[in-house]
């Protein structure tokens, strides 16, 4: 196979830097986080990323990458740089949440009292 392209647009480009492994600046596309919604009414769930020069093309790539199989209702793309998160070493700020059982319905047990009341007053 020949690397000589017949396409004049390519032949005019300076491709030397590729051989030297040097990337021109501004060669990076934007990173987008991709969210997939399986059906109407379901949550959009984070599934991965794509690289693309614009949100429109990011959606196109996301369709190829994350909607090839199974059903899809919609896709979202968000620039990775627009996502704000906690530092991963701050994970401990969530540590006590599961201990707060007073936030859960199972914490409230009224049956015994009701039974006791009924027995007393019947």
């Amino acid at each position, binding site marked *: 196979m020949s*690397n000589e392209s017949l396409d004049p647009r390519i032949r005019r480009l300076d491709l030397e830097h590729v051989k030297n492994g040097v990337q021109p600046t*501004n060669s990076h596309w934007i990173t987008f986080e991709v969210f997939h919604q399986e059906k109407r009414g379901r949550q959009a769930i984070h599934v991965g990323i794509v690289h693309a020069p614009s949100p429109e093309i990011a959606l196109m790539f996301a369709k190829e990458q994350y909607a090839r199989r199974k059903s899809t209702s919609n896709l979202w793309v968000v620039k990775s740089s627009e996502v704000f998160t906690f530092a991963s070493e701050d994970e401990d700020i969530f540590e006590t949440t599961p201990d707060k059982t007073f936030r859960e319905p199972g914490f409230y047990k009224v049956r015994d009292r009701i039974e006791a009341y009924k027995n007393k007053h019947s």
Partner: protein
Amino acid sequence: MYGNTFMTAEEAKQMDQTQDNPQKLIAFEARIERGEKIEPGDWMPVDYRKQLIRMIEQHAHSEIVGALPEGTWITRSPGFKRKLALIAKVQDEIGHGQLLYSACETLGKTREEMLDDLLSGKSKYSNVFNYPAKTWADMAVIGFLVDGAAIVNQVINSKGSYGPYCRALERICFEESFHLKQGHDNFVFLATGTNVQREMVQEALNRWYIPLLHFFGPSDKTSVHSEKLMKWKIKLATNDDMRNQFLDQYVPKIREVGLTLPDEKLKKNLETNKWEFSDPDWDEFYRVVNGDGPCNKERLEVRRFAEEQGRWVRQALVNPQDKYVTPFA
């Protein structure tokens, strides 16, 4: 698809000398021991990051290069249904490469750097893709057995310690099951067909037997593997164990349709429960790894051709304001 990676003695030695913050290292190893996953922003030892980058990157390149021999058969597929299946499979493989490049990027190496290193020969890809696909029967053997071997490896690796890699592998394994089934379908179709078809698939099997044995890397007896890789759950099974698991699963499926493998010594030792076989030529393995295989040059040339052909499109779309951001997951 994916072949196993291996290390030189020098690299293994170097790895054992790296010093990390001892307290953080203890906490890190305890997490892995408990079965927790490590995520991109977490503290990790220098070598953990380095070895993961190397492994995931090689895996990604293997998906991309692995699609090349099959890609050339799309236009020559016998029949429309097989053509559709092959297009879908090849597209999946490229998708696997993309998923893996994404996972690797979370460790700090950009996609462009990885593609450059593939073209310059600095990064490797699985050796098995340096062999030619001569006939349609090679498609059957690749889809069935090379993907089968890759699945053995990928299922094991998906139990590893690095979150983004495990998630990518779970998705990949799910898709690979279709590759395997369509490969098996092609394989059985030829094996149960006319004499000419049977002969074709037998010849393809004979060609792929050695590359398939090589696929899992050098024998445990000769290869260096760092204890750390196992402890950190980067590597989860030895090369010989994976090879044995592969033979266990697939030799019976080859023999049940009356085909053979070109090795008189190949048999299962019922006492040790391990497969025995003639030692495949490991000199050839190293020769091919180092660039001197039947298709090494062609594979990289095709990659380079695609890189150069597509460059003007990618550059035309670049916005000078764009900044590279390491992805989250």
